């Protein structure tokens, strides 16, 4: 089964800082695989009989050597890298159109796998739009995938139930954030990854429509929460008592 897993590379949000004028500063936030997409890559790699490729679309900054190896150390045998500033903060429609173009250029896939939602916008929409644009069935909330003959059987978790659905291929699935724990690549995996093929495409190579569907007007850092910030230290005599007293008072 030819499987394409689509992932997003985003700045590491633990290193996003706030500027004096309340804006966000990404200068030390290195590119990382969006957290829930790690689970998707692992889920794709574990499908029985799957030959996995990966695709990622984003601004030029996502074309990072460490992340290329990180992706290829987790199961995919090749990576299609579309790193073009045209895709900075691309909305779901622009991204989906690019992935459709990339998937069609890359080969004939039976299944395209998406994660539960990206770390930055968590829109959970790109996979659904890709399915519609391709005219393929799409299932979100997929918590288990079993390979079949020209089909897959999935367990799909909604708010109230787990559904079992037979899905004819080709199809698109978006998996849950807890479908499977991602592997921790070994040094050997990472070294091998350095030898796997990466194909780089620009927005022009894809030729997809990049007209924005959503305009971004402003991004700001929220005002810091108005909290007391009284910090005690357990190693200081009496501090645990003070903390306990404050807690007891709040519980009154």
């Amino acid at each position: 089964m030819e499987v394409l897993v689509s992932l997003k590379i985003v700045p590491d949000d633990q290193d996003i800082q706030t500027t004096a004028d309340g804006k966000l500063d990404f200068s030390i936030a290195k590119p990382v695989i969006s957290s829930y997409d790690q689970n998707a890559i692992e889920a794709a790699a574990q499908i029985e009989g799957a030959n996995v490729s990966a695709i990622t679309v984003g601004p030029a900054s996502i074309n990072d050597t460490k992340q290329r190896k990180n992706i290829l150390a987790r199961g995919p045998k090749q990576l299609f890298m579309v790193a073009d500033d045209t895709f900075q903060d691309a909305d779901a429609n622009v991204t989906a159109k690019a992935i459709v173009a990339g998937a069609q250029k890359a080969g004939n896939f039976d299944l395209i796998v998406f994660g539960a939602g990206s770390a930055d916008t968590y829109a959970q929409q790109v996979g659904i739009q890709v399915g519609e644009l391709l005219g393929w069935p799409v299932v979100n909330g997929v918590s288990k995938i079993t390979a079949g003959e020209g089909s897959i059987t999935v367990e799909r978790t909604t708010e109230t139930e787990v559904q079992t659905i037979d899905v004819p291929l080709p199809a698109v699935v978006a998996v849950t954030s807890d479908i499977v724990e991602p592997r921790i690549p070994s040094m050997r995996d990472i070294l091998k990854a350095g030898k796997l093929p990466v194909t780089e495409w620009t927005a022009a190579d894809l030729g997809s429509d990049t007209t924005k569907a959503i305009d971004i007007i402003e991004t700001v850092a929220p005002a810091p929460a108005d909290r007391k910030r009284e910090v005690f230290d357990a190693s200081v005599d009496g501090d645990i008592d003070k903390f306990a007293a404050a807690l007891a008072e709040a519980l009154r």
Partner: protein
Amino acid sequence: MKAWVIAQNEKAARELAAGVRTLADQVQLVALTDAAAVTGVADEVLKVAVPAGAMVESSVDTIAALVDAQSPEMIVAEPTAAIKVVIGRLAARRGTAVVTDAVKINADGTAEVMYFGGVGHRTVKPAATPAIYTASAATFGDAPAATGTDTVTEVAWVEPASALTVKSTEQLPKADVDLTAAKRIVGVGRGIAAEEDLQMVRDLCGKMGAELGCSRPVAEAEGWLPREAYIGVSGVVTNPDVYLALGISGQMQHMVGVSNAKTIFAINKDKTAPIFNQADYGLVGDIYDVVPKLAEKLQ
């Protein structure tokens, strides 16, 4: 302006209809189930009768035809898994994209959303109509109770070219805890090393009259607590009077789930943990040492 609500549950139908009424003078409630076909909250209920055995998701063609017939300028949808598929497919057909989990929606079409789970706030605006959003009751704050007529119009079902069907279902066990209603909550994070260690925390919860919640790794990677206990941007958002965080670093994706708490307490052995900047009272210390002592003092 004509605006739609799309819902499959009664509560969301009422809440979103009330909210949308503050933005639009004409409100239609597109109900995808009998339960959502609530009268008296919108100018008209457009009832989509999904055939027996069909999935709600297979209503895309019906909804697309209805959009062409009714031309709503704005659509505010309940964020269920099924509706996300319906509006996502609709958005793809119309060359637009859904603004998801809007924190606020304005009559001019602009909306506020979270960026990186709350690290930033963004103001966005869909370029085309209908402008499509998902939202919850919280999006509209204190909207006056919804008003409307008894008019219910049956929508003609458009049979899709192909559709998936559900082979079998298993009901998820009802959560035995509802953190959204809890007034006192203790949250545990990676600072807890093993599942057995939760016992001392449960003891403390007992003394505090608190429910037990957690950050994502404890619910998902470790599976020590159920999904309903996971507090955070893709889990539960809570409104407690008291929140005590044990061994939680304070990442925004979790803190967004407790930012409404009246008083926040935190214990962490790392004095540089971001949580100390977001708490009212912090204690730098080892939870294995402090938690039993706290439980004793709260006797």
